[in-house]
């Protein structure tokens, strides 16, 4: 076994060790033992992924492990990229979790399921046959479901979220299962190597692609299959949210790349335009919902939909450009998509873990009840600020680099990609630009309202800084963000090797300090931008300080229009911050508001109380899922006639159904 294999097996062993430690260790040592073992597993996994990205490949066939076909594992650079992301997120989340789980989450089962979840997410990209892949996928779904349901005793909304997640993830699994089984049947074998060699008729290929796309898109939270995401992510414990949002949803993107681009070798251009359109719509819809959301974790969940939407835009563009014969740009687009996967994982881990720290310290995740955390939780505030800056797609954040690469690939595609490209590419550019703008507003809101100004509730006022171990986990994620932001010249060539699995034989970028795009004109130097920004900010600060010290300071009372003293109720809230945006996108969001005026008994002109209630429902859920659920419920109610409670009747159903089926068999055969 080579280095990659050794590290990967070590990682899986650490997961098993963590699960065993969680089950057997006494309560005092449990959190530390399980957390550190999981972190070690993540570190080994990340190292294995890096080694795979460096070009070393590994494959294994364990015939005894699964019945009939055996388990097949293989790590190539493409798998390696996703394994690195999962491993690194697992390290941060596990360390953070050691502190986070102290209040009520230190149960045996919960602690043992977490490493299983990590192991399953390492296995999904490493699977090299249909059965292994599906098994790992299902393990990932089930273990994450258990983790989402961890706090179901505390909160009834957790159960609803769990139900939505269970249904959506299993429908997704069914779709993937149907697609891959049809693929394997057509190819005459189930290992990925055989699938790659298979020559299927185009109609079968289309069916395989569309069914698997539906499953993968639901895992990636792509509109309109995203409904589980903004429910499950807020209700899960925060470090689990980080794992789900930064590592698990990526598997959807991995699946589309692996099946669509690698195993099916691309396909007609319309497949990829579909992916691109779904991605662009998700990006815009996700960030719009995030912008008007006032629940911190729900906001982050919708932002995940946005970012995975951007990744899908990249993947779709890559497939489309490859199908129209511009391989240079296809390579660039896919590299941009993978880079965005990595970047999103880094900043979303940071944000969810800091949101977890806030929740730990205050017990509140409603932005309208937060605020004033800068003085009480300075380190957490700084960490969240770093994450928010990275998520805003502005320099010097890391998302800027990947979105810039993505835009470059789309802009340069216009001349050579025919009519379809000439129409879609500018539209996609516009949607990305709009979503980037909205992302800035969203994260200004999340940070400004959530952390600055005065506390808006007693809980926020009582907040204290979280234990160092939680800060450590978050700080590690921030370190990854910074590294990605200043040194993409190291990361992108490595991801180029992952891209080469699909589009072989081309470098994406060159240059040590500046990113030079191969094949098209385009240069960016994130490091220089960061340094320049830093220097100019320092210069401004120094100037202000120098100018300020010339004059003597004078203390005065704050102007409060004579209405003072100013209270926290006068502050800008998350809802009021988002109100203008909500007004602009009124037609898309269709917000519901409700004004309830209670007049006084004596006179109708005197008002005793005005109650205003506003909420922005998920419109797609409203329009698409509610009728479906209502129809299913109606069928269920009608079917109750069949269930009278008589055992004989139930047995009779079975008997007559069997007899009927047998008669049909006899007649037709």
């Amino acid at each position: 076994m080579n280095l990659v294999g050794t590290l990967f097996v070590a990682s899986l062993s650490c997961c098993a060790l963590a699960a065993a430690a969680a089950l057997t260790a006494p309560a005092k040592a449990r959190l530390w033992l399980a957390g550190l073992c999981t972190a070690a597993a993540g570190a080994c996994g990340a190292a294995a992924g890096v080694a795979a990205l460096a070009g070393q490949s590994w494959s294994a066939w364990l015939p005894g492990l699964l019945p009939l076909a055996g388990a097949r594992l293989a790590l190539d650079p493409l798998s390696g990229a996703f394994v690195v992301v999962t491993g690194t997120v697992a390290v941060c989340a596990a360390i953070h979790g050691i502190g986070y789980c102290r209040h009520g989450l230190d149960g045996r089962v919960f602690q043992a399921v977490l490493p299983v979840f990590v192991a399953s997410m390492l296995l999904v990209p490493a699977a090299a046959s249909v059965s292994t892949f599906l098994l790992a996928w299902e393990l990932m779904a089930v273990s994450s479901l258990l983790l989402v349901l961890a706090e179901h005793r505390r909160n009834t909304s957790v159960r609803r979220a769990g139900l939505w997640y269970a249904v959506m993830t299993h429908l997704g699994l069914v779709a993937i299962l149907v697609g891959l089984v049809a693929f394997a049947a057509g190819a005459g074998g189930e290992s990925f190597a055989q699938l790659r060699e298979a020559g299927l008729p185009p109609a079968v290929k289309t069916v395989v692609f569309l069914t698997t796309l539906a499953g993968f898109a639901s895992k990636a939270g792509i509109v309109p299959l995203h409904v589980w995401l903004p429910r499950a992510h807020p209700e899960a414990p925060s470090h689990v949210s980080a794992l789900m949002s930064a590592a698990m949803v990526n598997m959807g993107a991995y699946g589309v790349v692996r099946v669509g681009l690698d195993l099916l070798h691309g396909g007609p251009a319309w497949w990829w335009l579909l992916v691109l359109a779904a991605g662009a719509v998700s990006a815009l819809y996700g960030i719009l919902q995030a912008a008007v959301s006032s629940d911190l974790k729900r906001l982050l969940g919708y932002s995940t939909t946005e970012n995975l939407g951007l990744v899908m835009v990249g993947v779709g563009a890559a497939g489309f450009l490859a199908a129209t014969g511009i391989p240079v740009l296809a390579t660039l687009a896919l590299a941009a998509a993978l880079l965005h996967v990595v970047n999103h994982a880094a900043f979303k881990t940071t944000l969810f873990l800091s949101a977890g720290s806030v929740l730990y310290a205050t017990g509140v995740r409603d932005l309208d009840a937060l605020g004033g955390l800068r003085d009480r939780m300075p380190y957490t505030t700084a960490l969240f600020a770093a994450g928010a800056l990275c998520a805003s797609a502005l320099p010097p954040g890391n998302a800027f680099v990947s979105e810039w690469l993505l835009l470059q690939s789309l802009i340069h595609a216009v001349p050579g990609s025919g009519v379809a490209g000439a129409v879609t590419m500018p539209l996609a550019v516009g949607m990305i630009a709009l979503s980037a703008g909205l992302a800035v507003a969203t994260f200004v809101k999340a940070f400004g309202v959530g952390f600055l100004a005065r506390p808006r509730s007693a809980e926020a006022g009582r907040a204290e800084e979280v234990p160092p171990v939680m800060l450590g986990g978050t700080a590690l994620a921030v370190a990854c963000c910074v590294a990605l932001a200043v040194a993409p010249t190291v990361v992108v060539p490595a991801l180029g090797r992952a891209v080469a699995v699909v589009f072989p034989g081309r470098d994406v970028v060159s240059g040590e300090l500046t990113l030079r795009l191969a094949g098209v004109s385009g240069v960016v130097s994130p490091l220089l931008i960061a340094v320049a920004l830093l220097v100019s900010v320092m210069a401004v600060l120094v100037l202000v300080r120098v100018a300020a010290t010339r004059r003597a300071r004078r203390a005065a009372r704050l102007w409060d229009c004579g209405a003072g003293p100013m209270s926290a109720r006068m502050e800008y809230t998350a809802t009021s911050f988002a109100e203008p945006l909500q007004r602009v996108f009124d037609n898309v969001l269709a917000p519901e508001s409700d004004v309830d005026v209670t007049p006084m008994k004596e006179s109708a002109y005197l008002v005793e109380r005005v109650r205003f209630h506003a909420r922005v429902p998920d419109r797609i859920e409203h329009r698409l899922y509610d009728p479906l659920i209502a129809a299913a419920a109606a069928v269920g109610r009608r079917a109750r006639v069949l269930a009278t409670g008589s055992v004989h009747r139930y047995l009779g159903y079975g008997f007559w159904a069997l007899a009927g089926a047998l008669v049909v068999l006899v007649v037709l055969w």
Partner: protein
Amino acid sequence: MTDATFVQLLDLACGAFLLTAVLVLWRRELAAIVWLFALQGIALTALIVVLGARQGDVELILIGLGVGALRAGLLPYLMRRALVAGGGGRETQPLVNVATSLLVAAVLAMLAYALSQPLVRLSPTPATQAVPVALTVLLIGFFLLVTRRRALSQLVGFLLMDNAITAAAFLTTSGVPLVVELGISLDVLLAVLVLQVLTTRMRAAFGGTDLDELRELHD
């Protein structure tokens, strides 16, 4: 053992197997039903032992004897004990009366015969040609399960199905591995024990073992 003797013995065992099932459908006294079930267990044992002797397979003969001990010995014993505890009795009012039941059994036999033709065509040996018998007993067992009211006769229906499945397994393959047969037998034993407990509890709660009394549990 010559070919002719083998076929005759096999057919005799299968005939007894089928006949006992039909008689279970006919008789209404629960004690008689248990007794007929024990007879069917012996027929099943004979069937397996004949197959084992034909193949010269000692393990198969031993499995057959084990199956016999369970199905002709232990299970009837357990049921008889339950019956004595419940004070005996008759299957008072089956959902389908006895004459119709026998007619249905004939129809089921024809269905089973038609159904197993492709199987027989695959390898037309004397053993495979007896598969329709096993399928008929399976369907009769299911029918018994559906139409009888008393818990004990339903249990016999379930066990008839299981006997039939075992018979079909031995007729179509050249011997079932010991582990598999052991697993199935333990399953059956467990099911009988659970149902016995259930019957006792039902009698304590409702004063009878008519399964439709359970309708009250429906919400």
